């Protein structure tokens, strides 16, 4: 099976090329990918612990081992890059290249085998497409490109087994499960955006309060702090356990 990048990723290829051009940024991104893969390995091990299906258990263990190996490969390459280039740029554009399941919060305990397989299939599919585009834009770094190409082979296996097992467990409703998983991803994306927006608004509102309401209290607090003696204080007189103060 040949993996193709999505149309969106094709359109954004120049941007991907720019993001991956800087070797220090590349190293940092690889470390981030390593962490994501290691988290994924733990999720899959948890899935193996929870499933009652012995075949799925074996597959999840194999998948977990693959993800852990990917984590080690990404981290190793990141270290090599930093060793040769030194550390530097902090901007990573992670919204553009989040890595495998980088933005999906997977709660293995809450998923039935079918829905988990559908989720994994879509997730692996998306990651494979993204890894394919990374491999394409890394012409200046053949070692990292080779790494992505190697990992892509595993991704193909993961895509294949998740689809096959979904068909085995849910032969009649596999299409529905995939659509449900897609809808779940869209809903999660909406929640992420909404939560991020709410956090930004809350941040701005609190920052305004900070600058307009707090200065006077800040003066008083600083003055009180200057009067504090160094070292030990007498222990605070215990308050009743019914009190939150």
């Amino acid at each position, binding site marked *: 099976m040949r993996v193709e990048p999505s149309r969106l990723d094709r359109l954004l290829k120049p941007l991907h090329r720019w993001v991956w051009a800087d070797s220090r940024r590349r190293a940092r991104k690889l470390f981030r990918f390593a962490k994501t893969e290691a988290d994924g390995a733990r999720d899959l091990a948890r899935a193996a*612990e929870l499933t009652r299906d012995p075949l799925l258990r*074996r597959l999840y263990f194999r998948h977990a081992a693959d993800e852990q190996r990917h984590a080690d490969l990404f981290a190793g390459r990141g270290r090599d890059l930093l060793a040769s280039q030194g550390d530097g740029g902090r901007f990573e554009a992670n919204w553009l290249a989040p890595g495998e399941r980088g933005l999906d919060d997977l709660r293995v305990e809450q998923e039935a085998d079918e829905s988990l397989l559908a989720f994994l299939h879509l997730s692996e599919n998306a990651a494979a497409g993204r890894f394919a585009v990374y491999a394409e834009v890394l012409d200046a770094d053949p070692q990292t490109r080779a790494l992505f190409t190697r990992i892509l082979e595993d991704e193909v296996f993961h895509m294949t087994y998740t689809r096959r097992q979904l068909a085995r467990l849910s032969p009649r409703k596999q299409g529905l499960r995939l659509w449900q998983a897609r809808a779940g991803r869209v809903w999660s994306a909406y929640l992420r955006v909404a939560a991020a927006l709410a956090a930004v608004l809350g941040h701005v509102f609190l920052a305004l309060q*900070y600058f307009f309401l707090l200065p006077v209290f800040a003066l008083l607090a600083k003055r009180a702090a200057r009067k504090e003696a160094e*070292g030990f*204080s007498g*222990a*605070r007189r215990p*308050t009743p356990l*019914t009190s*939150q103060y």
Partner: protein
Amino acid sequence: MRVLGISAHYHDSAAALLVDGEPVCAVQEERLSRRKNDAAFPLSAIEWCLEQGRLEPDQLDAVVFYEKPMLKFERILTMALRGFPRTWRSFPRAMQNALGGKLWVKGIIRSQLGVRTDRILFCEHHQSHAAAAFLSAPTRSAAILTADGVGEWATLTLGRGEVDEDGSTRIQLLREMRFPHSLGMLYSTFTAYLGFPVNEGEYKVMGLAAYGNPTYEGLLKRIARRTPDGGIALDLSWFDFHQSARHSYSRKLVAELGPPREPWDPIDLQSADGRRYADVAASVQRVLEEILVDLARRLQRETGLQDLCLGGGVALNGVANARILRESGFRNVYVPSAPGDAGCALGAALYADRIHFARPHRPVADHPYWGPVADAGELSRVAAEDGFQPLRLPEAELIRRVADELARGRIVGWMQGACELGPRALGNRSILAAPHQHAMRDRLNRSIKYREEFRPFAPAVPLEHADRYFELPAGGGRLARFMSGVFPVRPEWRDKLAAVTHVDGTARLQTVDQAMAPAFHALLEAYGARTGIPVLLNTSFNLAGEPIVNRAIEGYSTFRRSGIDLLVAGDSLVVKDHSAQALPEVA
């Protein structure tokens, strides 16, 4: 009377249940949720505790939270004001954090458990630590020292506890140091500087310290200056933790010590940077030890007591604990198995029972095994489904077989009975191996623990044999009961205990009391009968980044994903068979 203790929201959330003054069970949320250091409200842990006590939430007489949220909020707000305007970035985040949930603990408990509001109580953070340390120790009168990063305001307290003949109990905290002057924050700041995760990597700093020289001790003493009354005053120009949520140390520290280590940078002790990191670790460790020893010595003189109970996360520093025992004048030093925040769930419940409700003290069973029990049947079922051939063996035969395998150099995953409360595996959720050769340490690091080479592994030894192999001061055997002290390996045994002897000739040993862990004790004896040395390497049963295993299936999962050769859960035994792990074509 039924009292539920809860700790949550910062790190290591947990729940503990007390019925008629005696602990029934306690468990950290991470063991059930499988998220390391899970700080979420411990609903799974609470549900499990209630299930064990066969209780519904409305049958609880009290639910005790381990700190006072409003007082903590006052500290957070005050520090933001004191740091104005430099705290403009951290203020919105801190407020969102507090106002978004952590402040409303009473409402959370009421909505999650449905208990009446008047039954929800709040114990101060360091009182919870003090109660966990004192009320679970086998003593009726002791000095108490608690130290951690910070609770509400207090970062370190000195006090005393007493139990009268009639069982009435008093815990009196005499003095405290207040945020931002904190020994825990000092150590955590250097943990962060050395590239380790704060609240998790502190023991790595302790391990790394043995490779270095305390060349920065002078600087550290300027940073953490002693005050005339024996306290410390941190020079805040070296820190950022009091005004930033992101950085714990300031640029001034980096200018003085050089660039910090990035988390992914391996520590190469042959390189100049590697040696510098080790020296920094040795310096902060030395300063911490000296301050703690001095504080304990003053407390001993002031109270005249023989026993000291240590609590708070700083009490996990086994090197410092051993020095306190040797040098402070206390005859016994007691550290609970969970001196950190997880143990506060038990501490808060005990405090409420003994002090708030004034019920008579009852000795707390002197063991760390308060969690869920491993199910041998679960292991047998899953292993058989996967093509292994699990065995169910009588205990004597099981111990013989495991001791034989250990003597042959096999690595064993060992799950017996109830899970430990606290960060140490103390023989019920342990990975065991022969302790004799460096090669075993390397093999464990490479194929199971995937961790830094400088970190030592711990030995376990029957209490009655400990003196033969380790230089234990009086009271050392007790301190080592929950692996809370680091002691020298006797020079003549270091070569034969190479896998558990740290570079400085010490080991963080566990002394195993037959009454506390009979099966583990029997295994050590059986291993000793085969090899002449009843000592085993004992490391926590988990992989990097995961909590210690709880259920048998989690032990099995770890066994499948690592180089463990043999897995035991209760009376069930499984031997690694690689052909059983192959995938069929249908995949």
